[in-house]
């Protein structure tokens, strides 16, 4: 985490109000005392880093819980790197067939790929292997979830506006890469679910207009299930190419934040031209490190206690087998939902297909959603806020009812499609007919955004009028008994 130093840092007016600190700064006799000063001096003489360290220690983090969502994503990434490195030591990315002779009886002496066999062995025969694999998978689910919540926070508070639009684009790209990275990981073990997921991915790649066939053939090295080199392509993408891109973009994301300083919510003493909050050292560093450890604790506890993706139960994949209720990880649930909701439209001319059906749900729908998200800063300038000023103070959702209502409406449409992706399992539990459910979701996809738009706008307008906070206040009244024995009520 390196950040350039502003040139006139020391000259800037500061209102620390700390007598002890000033006393320290005033001692300039050049002589050092104490081990800490020795250590800092050692570094400073070699790197000239004392000024950078001071700048970093005084870097101010505004106090708000929602600013930690991005940190949760960052720390999930670190957990993913650590656990993934462990897994890479034992995984063999090859689809060459071998006869399974591990400890799991139902697959005994079946012909399986080295990839699947090594994933089973690292789960069953390597000490701590299953713990690491499950922690890795939970971390992946939390990673994308944290990015998504972070994105919602950014959208609903208008944090994507100038000067943070570049960083917003980087963040969106991180989300796209995280989803791709997660899917690649889900596809690596060559179990039944990962194979079915790859088949769908291949069909979606094939469905691209004009380039579909050659594109899918180039990626897979031929027709699905692809050349023997496909597994190693997937592997190199999962363990090197995409993580490297993620790491570079995360570094850029953080650097830009530190150049611009955090945005902040309006409040007493908080202005466009300052940042009010806890300095990095010591309180914030401890809290943030505590968050890292707490996240790691949650992920490791879940990795140890709650089973995730038990690939041995799914069995090996072959293109001619399939299981009911096959699902992708949650972050692709909206795409399987879109594929299922799409009516059986396929555009063709004279017996030649032009637009195959998976294009609509698998490419067009996510394409529209992400194009809308990338265009949001422009849409905001042009249609929502209708101004192009620089903003370092955030808006609360109720401060801009039109934006909040629009974002909530789009989100509800995606949520409906997402729900449709798991409709088969939900309706299996409750016994409704699947076709009816699909028609219900098709209707809800059109109606829900309108209702949500109207509802959200009203709630925002009303909250703004009442100056109430939906989470931090209650709407009751405090009744106090007065000295005359009567009761008086007043807003608390």
């Amino acid at each position, binding site marked *: 985490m390196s950040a350039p130093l502003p040139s006139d840092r020391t000259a800037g007016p500061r209102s620390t109000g700390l007598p002890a600190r000033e006393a320290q700064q005033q001692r300039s006799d050049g002589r050092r005392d104490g081990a800490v000063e020795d250590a800092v001096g050692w570094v400073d003489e070699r790197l000239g880093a004392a000024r950078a360290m001071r700048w970093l220690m005084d870097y101010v983090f505004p106090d708000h819980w929602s600013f930690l969502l991005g940190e949760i994503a960052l720390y999930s990434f670190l957990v993913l790197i650590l656990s993934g490195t462990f897994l890479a030591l034992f995984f063999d990315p090859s689809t060459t067939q071998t006869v399974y002779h591990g400890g799991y009886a139902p697959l005994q002496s079946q012909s399986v790929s080295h990839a699947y066999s090594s994933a089973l062995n690292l789960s069953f025969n390597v000490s701590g292997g299953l713990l690491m694999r499950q922690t890795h998978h939970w971390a992946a689910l939390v990673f994308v979830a944290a990015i998504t919540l972070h994105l919602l926070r950014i959208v609903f508070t208008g944090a994507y506006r100038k000067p943070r639009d570049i960083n917003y684009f980087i963040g969106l790209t991180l989300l796209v890469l995280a989803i791709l990275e997660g899917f690649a990981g889900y596809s690596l073990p060559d179990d039944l679910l990962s194979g079915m997921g790859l088949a769908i991915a291949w069909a979606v790649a094939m469905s691209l207009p004009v380039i579909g066939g050659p594109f899918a053939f180039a990626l897979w090295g031929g027709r699905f299930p692809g050349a023997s080199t496909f597994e190693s392509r997937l592997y190199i993408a999962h363990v090197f190419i995409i993580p490297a891109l993620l790491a570079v973009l995360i570094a850029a994301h953080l650097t830009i934040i530190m150049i611009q300083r955090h945005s902040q919510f309006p409040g007493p003493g908080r202005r466009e031209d300052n940042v009010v909050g806890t300095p990095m050292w010591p309180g914030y560093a401890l809290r943030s490190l505590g968050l890292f450890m707490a996240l790691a604790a949650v992920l490791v506890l879940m990795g140890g206690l709650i089973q995730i993706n038990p690939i041995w139960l799914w069995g090996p994949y072959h293109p001619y087998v399939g299981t009911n209720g096959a699902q992708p990880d949650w972050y692709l649930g909206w795409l399987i939902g879109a594929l299922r909701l799409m009516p059986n439209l396929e555009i063709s001319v004279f017996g030649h297909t032009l637009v195959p059906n998976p294009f609509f749900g698998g490419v067009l729908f996510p394409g529209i959603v992400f194009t809308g998200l990338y265009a949001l800063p422009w849409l905001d300038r042009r249609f929502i806020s209708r101004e192009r000023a620089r903003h370092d103070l955030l808006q609360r959702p109720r401060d801009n009812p039109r934006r909040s209502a629009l974002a909530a409406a789009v989100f509800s449409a995606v949520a409906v499609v997402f729900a449709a992706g798991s409709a088969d399992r939900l309706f299996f539990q409750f016994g409704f007919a699947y076709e009816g459910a699909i028609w219900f979701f098709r209707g809800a996809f059109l109606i829900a955004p309108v209702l949500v738009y109207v509802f959200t706008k009203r709630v925002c307008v009303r909250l703004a009028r009442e100056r109430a906070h939906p989470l*931090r206040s209650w709407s009751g009244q405090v009744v106090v008994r007065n000295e005359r024995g009567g009761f008086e009520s007043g807003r608390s």
Partner: protein
Amino acid sequence: MSRLWKAIVAIVVWRSGRSRSRHGTDAVSPQADVASPRYVDPTERHTGASTGVQRAVVLLLVGCAACGFGFLALFVLHPQTQLLGLALGLALALLAGALILAGRRLVPQETLVEERPRPQDDREVREVAARVDASLDGITRRGLLAGAAGVAGAGLTAAVVIPVVALGPGVEDQLSHTPWRAGRALVDDEESPILASDVRPGSFITAFPRHADKDNLGSPVIVVRVDPSELRPPAARAGWAPEGIMAYSKICTHAACAISLFRSPLNPSTETRGPALVCPCHYSTFDVLDGGSVEFGPAGRALPQLPLAIDAATGVLIAAGPMSGPVGPSWWGDNQ
């Protein structure tokens, strides 16, 4: 799931109670005014950790160390996933507790106000622009140079892109190719030939071409049998279903999943729906009586059918010709 639900409800109840008790202490809004008694000075700094807090942090750190050594012992002696996860998770949780407690209660609590660096004027911008303009001083053929650079870029792009597109011409051939030829026998997953007499109404058999790669998308077919009088196939497919036995590609024309569901009503007289093949991924449903046409779901075209014949000598099912169309999902320009 019910346990999970109870836990969530408990957390919500606890959380709402908590937010009520905190009400009023951190009501920070832009309208809050400095004179208000609830106004908190943003630059306040509090020091002085109680000995209780210090002791608690020490205890948490010691607990973390104990769990860490416990993990080590388990790893060596009894590497069971749940115990390992508990030990390492608790060690991390205790460390997190120590760090959070230290961050909030041990070290000084302070708030700083930092100036936000903002561009004061655009003098720097103008200087950069001037430097760029100055680099073109004395160059007369600017348009020509820019054009040449554009040509170079186009050439390089073509050099990179064309090899990818060059894969194109083969795609159609490769995708249309299946191992099925007239006369090729149908075998099951253990290479035993499939006898026509084994295929009975309601049967659902996955078959492959004899001696072919079973993982080839063109290979797997589903063999089913219906009452020939109920068949209403396209006219061109007369004779494709000897004795009502039919074979369809097992690969869905929507997204390449294996069609591993056969809805086969036992008592057709009480059923409004006929026999159909269903894909478990997106529930595309194909009518087996009607040449595999789409009955429901997202698939855009019918399931390819394999014409069948019965070998007179052995009674084994054999292919009577190639598949009726391209197997698997559609692509731009395919020939339906």
